[in-house]
């Protein structure tokens, strides 16, 4: 089992070569989306092997949203399990969402209704996933732009109920909290302070943009905003020494720009947690 500490970055093809050839001690681990590597050869396999030689790897799934009505098929979870165990990941994360129904895959993260039925469904999926992967499972809070039906509780209550009843870990996406706070009108600091710190195993930060109509969208394609850096510091002071990942999936900037963001995250990490790499 790999130990994951400090700041990491999502391994993406567009930035892999720069990452491999850079001298960036701030990068202490990398995260991959396993769907991009399961049963795959060629360049992606080579990229993964190069990364695994150098850093601990954490996996973050995109398609096993735990709000799915149907349990995942063994035809996917079996090779997924093999990959995760090969990489010796400490946990595996998925999203608190659904990505399609009746076997269709929309390849996006859609929100669940904040109600009892969705809680029961999510808890069942989390338990099944934990059993089939034989690993701790963390769920990520998503950014959401619409309610699915009439909410019976707040997003925070919904998240806390799922965590408590399923005994899952939390991948706390700080940018998503910020985006949701802007779009749905709540205090992001109060939200984060309400989360039991022992649940949080990993943190995500990313950029977002605001549409002309005022809706804030989580893009993974923009620089991290000051407000999110500030919220990250608040989160780390609350949750303690939890590894932080910079997500950048699109509109990849120069390595120098990304490296500057990583350095800044590392400074915040050390300042907020009291950890010193020196």
């Amino acid at each position, binding site marked *: 089992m790999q130990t994951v500490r400090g700041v990491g970055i999502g391994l993406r093809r567009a930035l892999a070569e720069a990452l491999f050839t850079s001298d960036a001690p701030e990068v202490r681990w990398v995260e991959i989306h396993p*769907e*991009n590597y*399961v*049963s*795959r*050869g*060629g*360049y*992606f*396999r*080579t990229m993964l092997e190069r990364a695994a030689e150098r850093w601990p790897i954490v996996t973050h799934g*995109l*398609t*096993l949203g735990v*709000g799915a*009505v149907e349990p995942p098929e063994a035809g*996917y979870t079996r090779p997924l399990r093999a990959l995760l165990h090969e990489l010796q990941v400490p946990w595996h994360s998925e999203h608190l969402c*659904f990505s*399609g*129904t*009746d*076997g*269709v*895959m*929309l*390849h*996006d993260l*859609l929100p*669940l*209704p904040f109600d009892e*039925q*969705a809680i029961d*469904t999510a808890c069942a999926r989390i338990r099944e996933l934990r059993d089939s992967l034989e690993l701790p499972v963390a769920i990520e809070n998503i950014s*959401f*732009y*619409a*309610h*699915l*039906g*009439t909410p019976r509780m707040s997003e925070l209550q919904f998240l806390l109920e799922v965590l408590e009843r399923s005994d899952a870990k939390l991948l706390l996406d700080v940018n998503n909290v910020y985006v949701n706070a802007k779009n749905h009108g709540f205090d992001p600091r109060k939200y984060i302070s309400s989360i039991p710190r022992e649940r949080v195993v990993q943190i995500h930060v990313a950029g977002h943009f605001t549409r002309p*109509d005022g*809706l804030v*969208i989580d893009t993974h394609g923009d620089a991290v905003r000051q407000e999110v850096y500030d919220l990250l510091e608040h989160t780390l002071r609350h949750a303690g020494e939890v590894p932080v990942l910079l997500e950048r999936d699109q509109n990849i900037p120069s390595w120098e720009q990304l490296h500057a963001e990583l350095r800044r995250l590392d400074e915040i990490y050390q300042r907020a947690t009291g950890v010193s790499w020196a």
Partner: protein
Amino acid sequence: MGLVDQQRNAQAVCLRSEPPQQALAQLGDRRGWLVYREMVRTRLRDEVELGLRRSCRVAGQQAVTQTLDRYLEQVPPRTRLFREVACHFGRTVAPWWKADASLPAYLPDLCLYEVAVWEVADLDDRNHPEVVELAFDRPPVLSPALRLLALGHVVHTQPAADGGYTAEPCFLAVHRPADDRMVQPWRLNRLSYDLLCLWQAGGVSVTQAVQRVGQAHGLPVDATFVDGLCTVLADFIEKGIILGSLGAR
């Protein structure tokens, strides 16, 4: 309304060519769900246009939009692997494009060729059976990173000045050599193509395949044929298309 019906409504809003008004009303947040519709469709379209770049350019924006509308409504992707979406789309729509007289006749072949290139780039070539040196009395083992195509246009080359491709039978081995990220197309003659198809299906020795193919083409398996066969086999071995023979278990 139960969870599954709510999810079906959301899915219908994202996938139907026109968002169903009743589903939108039941979801209750019209603006938000239309944002999801746009996000889902844009992501899938971007992936298709990335994987099938030349085909989409030839088809044009309007045809791609219409085809994607039909695809998402009738046969939406079911794979968890995002990289497979472009392949699924291409294989699904190539017959649609073939039936559309307003589109160039070579477009379906170009699409299937791009599907093969996109797919072979990622095929996992690590897990193949144990191989020994090639022997005529054993089934050969082919590279797992290989797709064989029988097309009606020479679409693996540069297009002609008018943007089209020559119409003639074209047999291709689309292959990625081990430890190489570059996918390469090799043009085959009909005999070589038939032999590789038999060997890829498995369970047929070199000799058995040669006899079957020779018979099918009405060719005597004589010294000239065997000489030619040896040259072809040596070439396939050098290229890494044939890895050897299936080892004894």
